[in-house]
């Protein structure tokens, strides 16, 4: 048991009351004087040449202030991973979500009307929508300037000797798994408000998870517009959900900038729900061929994976998810011989981005489904099979990941115990489990994995922490405040966390890779430690006692068991301030973990620590309809140290339900590149009615490097859900569904198919 005062406490989210009262300001709520409203016109075709655009009628509409086409976008204004995607396309469109024009008008209604008046003549081109077909030589090219639709990204590794291991294996299984498009569905849609001051400095309110990198992108845009040496201020209003969707900058932001500059007025551009479905980036669909083998005792000998990823028409960070998929592929369970080869392929579909788990859910679906198949073939209980191969603290995986702490054993035991509580001989009921590994101590995918924090404390013992980190509802505000309060002996209500403005907040690489608790937490802790040292120094002087004997707790600085030597912290601060040569306490800290970029052969200790978890589920399958009912769900996670169990459980529950949607119901349906279900009626999210009982177990395995031992937990909840469900369905009715989502139709078809097969 820890004896922390603030860390580990179930303290409500700091901005919750504001939100509960309807007072929190989201991007939707921002209104500036003289503000105009922007709207974007998208392509009518998946693949076409733009022959002619006539904007004269739109321009003439009263209330319209500006109409932009691709011709108005500066040549060098480009977005995406390759910086090759202009915010409005010129000459050619490659997907339905390609932007072809934009307007700014006095009201959203006028803007919408103006879009309808833009006349565009297209010449439709043959589209390509199947990534496997797109790889064929005869297929049309999505981008004529590239020789092939296959991106030139070498996602390839081979550790050990897979061929040899395969020869030695007693049991081998092989199958193909596929996953489809799903999307974040943040309840607050995307949007931005851009404005320029008289000297052409930009302020942009936007919903980003990467304020510092976004600032850099926008600076590049200004440069492209001929505005050199200007300042960009990024202000994040309260964010209505992130889940990875806001890890790049998007056309709507750059278009808002162009419109604001052209109109010399603030321009607000907010997506409606349909746009949120059609014009934001999805999780990348994957075709995964996997082969795994073990010896006669169940020891995993090799894993061999080939993957094809539908990149869509443009390249955002989605194309880099194989770098994270490598993590479970090389390091989930002990396996010495691993081979992985992934190809990202251009199609005329929508393009993908980061989404909670960043490739890990796709890879884990294949691996953990296949592990069950292998266990069955080897005649070993699937939980036992995992126990045989589990990761251990001290392991260095083939990719060079150093496993510091690992609670996989605890998680396995717990999930097994929970699932076995109910005897399971009821017909059509089955259990399934799946494990996960994820980065828990930052992830060096950019040149820096750092975050800065600045801390100041006033005469009343009230602290302002300016952090580079981002809160989008997951609770970084609390994590920061609890860490600082713990370190300084204050209460959470003494800490104000500012995380919303690049003018005052230091640099951070972004809220991704479940890194914020670990990295932003360590940044805040580092700054607090510096202030604490000064407090102790003053305290020692004023209380006339060695600094080592002093304790900070409950707003007091004191020597334990010595009532004489005690003083309220605020009083000490005033003494420090209001004496000759007075001083006030403030400090900064930039924390960049000592993790490594993936180097040659993709080896390197990407994260300071890794987090593990095991999920177990009991399902009942209706053999008449194929409907899968989740009876019970157990999620056990190894978290280092829970800084705030209330919020941590919230991350797990939310992750699991997102994972259940991924497993069972969610799919962006595309027909020849066109989104066919861009609304909540047809895109099937889990609703309150579908909510399931989830028991979350949290194991504390304090990690030496983590702030108070904590590891990250934002993403893991949704990683092993789909394979756990697929395995449970197999256990229940003996059918193995290999493509997501596992809809009743697929289950029913598989049951029928199975019944047709002669018994062997």
């Amino acid at each position, binding site marked *: 048991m820890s004896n922390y005062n603030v860390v580990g406490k179930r303290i409500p989210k700091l901005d919750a009351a504001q939100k*509960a009262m*309807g007072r929190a300001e989201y991007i939707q709520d921002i209104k500036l004087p003289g503000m105009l409203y922007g709207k974007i016109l998208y392509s009518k075709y998946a693949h076409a040449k733009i022959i002619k655009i006539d904007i004269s009628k739109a321009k003439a509409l009263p209330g319209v202030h500006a109409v932009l086409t691709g011709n108005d976008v500066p040549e060098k204004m480009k977005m995406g991973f390759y910086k090759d995607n202009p915010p409005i396309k010129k000459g050619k469109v490659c997907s339905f979500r390609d932007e072809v024009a934009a307007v700014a008008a006095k009201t959203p209604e006028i803007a919408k009307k103006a879009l309808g008046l833009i006349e565009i003549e297209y010449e439709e081109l043959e589209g390509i929508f199947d990534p496997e077909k797109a790889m064929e030589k005869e297929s049309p090219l999505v981008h004529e300037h590239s020789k092939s639709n296959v991106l030139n990204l070498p996602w390839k590794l081979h550790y050990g000797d897979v061929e040899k291991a395969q020869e030695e294996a007693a049991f081998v299984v092989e199958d193909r798994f596929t996953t489809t498009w799903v999307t974040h569905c943040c309840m607050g849609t995307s949007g931005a408000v851009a404005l320029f001051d008289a000297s052409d400095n930009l302020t942009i309110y936007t919903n980003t998870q990467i304020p510092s990198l976004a600032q850099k992108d926008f600076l590049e845009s200004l440069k492209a517009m001929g505005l050199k040496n200007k300042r960009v201020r990024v202000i994040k209003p309260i964010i209505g959900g992130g889940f990875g969707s806001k890890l790049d900058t998007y056309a709507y932001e750059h278009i808002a900038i162009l419109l604001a500059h052209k109109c010399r007025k603030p321009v607000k551009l907010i997506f409606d729900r349909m746009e949120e479905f059609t014009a934001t980036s999805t999780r990348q669909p994957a075709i995964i061929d996997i082969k795994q083998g073990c010896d006669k005792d169940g020891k995993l000998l090799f894993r061999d994976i080939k993957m094809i990823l539908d990149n869509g028409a443009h390249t955002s960070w989605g194309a880099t998810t194989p770098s994270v998929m490598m993590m479970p592929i090389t390091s989930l369970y002990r396996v010495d011989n691993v081979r992985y080869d992934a190809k990202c392929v251009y199609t005329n579909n929508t393009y993908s981005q980061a989404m909670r788990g960043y490739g890990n859910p796709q890879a884990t679906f294949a691996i953990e489904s296949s592990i069950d198949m292998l266990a069955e073939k080897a005649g070993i209980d699937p939980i036992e099979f995992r126990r045989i191969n589990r990761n251990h603290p001290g392991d260095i995986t083939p990719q060079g990941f150093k496993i510091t702490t690992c609670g996989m054993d605890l998680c396995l035991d717990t999930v097994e115990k929970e699932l076995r509580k109910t005897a399971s001989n009821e017909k059509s009921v089955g259990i399934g489990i799946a494990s996960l590994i994820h980065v828990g101590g930052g992830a060096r995918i950019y040149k820096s994995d750092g975050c800065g924090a600045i801390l100041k404390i006033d005469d009343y013992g009230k602290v302002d922490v300016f952090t580079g980190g981002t809160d989008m509802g997951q609770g970084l505000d609390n994590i920061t405040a609890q860490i600082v309060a713990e370190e300084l002996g204050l209460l959470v209500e003494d800490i104000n966390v500012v995380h919303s403005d690049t003018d005052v907040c230091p640099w951070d690489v972004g809220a991704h890779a479940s890194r914020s608790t670990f990295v932003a937490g360590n940044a805040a802790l580092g700054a607090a430690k510096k202030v604490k040292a000064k407090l102790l120094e003053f305290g020692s002087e004023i209380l006339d006692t060695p600094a080592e004997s002093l304790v900070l707790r409950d707003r007091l600085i004191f020597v334990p068991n010595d009532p004489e030597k005690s003083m309220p912290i605020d009083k000490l601060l005033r003494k420090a301030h209001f004496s000759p040569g007075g001083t006030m306490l403030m400090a900064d800290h930039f924390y960049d973990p000592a993790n490594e970029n993936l180097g040659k052969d993709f080896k390197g200790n990407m994260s300071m620590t890794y987090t593990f978890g095991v999920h177990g589920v009991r399902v009942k399958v209706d053999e008449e309809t194929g409907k899968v009912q989740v009876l019970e769900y157990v999620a056990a996670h190894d978290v280092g140290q829970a800084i705030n169990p209330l919020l941590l459980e919230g991350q797990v529950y939310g992750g699991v339900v997102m994972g259940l949607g991924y497993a069972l119901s969610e799919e962006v349906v595309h027909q020849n590149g066109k989104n066919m279900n861009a609304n909540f009626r047809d895109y099937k999210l889990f609703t309150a009615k579908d909510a399931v009982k989830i028991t979350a177990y949290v194991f504390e395995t304090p990690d030496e490097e983590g702030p108070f031992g904590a590891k990250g937990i934002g993403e893991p909840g949704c990683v092993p859900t789909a394979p756990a469900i697929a395995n449970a369905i197999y256990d229940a009715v003996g059918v193995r569904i290999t493509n997501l989502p596992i809809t009743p139709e697929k289950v029913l078809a598989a049951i029928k198919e199975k019944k047709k097969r002669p018994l062997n």
Partner: protein
Amino acid sequence: MTTNISFLLNGDQISYEIKDHWTLLHLLREEMGLIGTKEGCGNGECGACTVIVDKLAVNSCLYLAIDADKKTIETIEGLASTDGTLHPLQQSFVDNGGIQCGFCTPGMIMSSKALLDENPNAGREEIKHALAGNICRCTGYIQIFESVEAAKKMGGQNE
């Protein structure tokens, strides 16, 4: 076309000249500046815009402002007392982790309020049913149910 309507909004008598095509959501958010009511879809599919009209939870994005004439309307802004004390439902959402990004929260609380006002002893199934039209992407609903149940004990049905 414009029409003059009058209604009781969070206890205040209001009279407003509206355009006939306005939705109640538009009137509240865009015209009256009551930003607490959220728009998540504008299509009756997410519940973020839920307000209470004559004791019934409705999607204000589908409800015409003109139909609010002579009605009693409650929005999230009307729940806390003037001294800043949160309504039991607001407090329990805060205390029980019912709020992450918070975008669904006003709608969730208004739907929950309509339920508890009508049925102070609502059980889990009734809560699930009452919130079926309110989507939350963050919480997985569990802590939201717990929030409503905790509010019940605090007297969530009271004004």
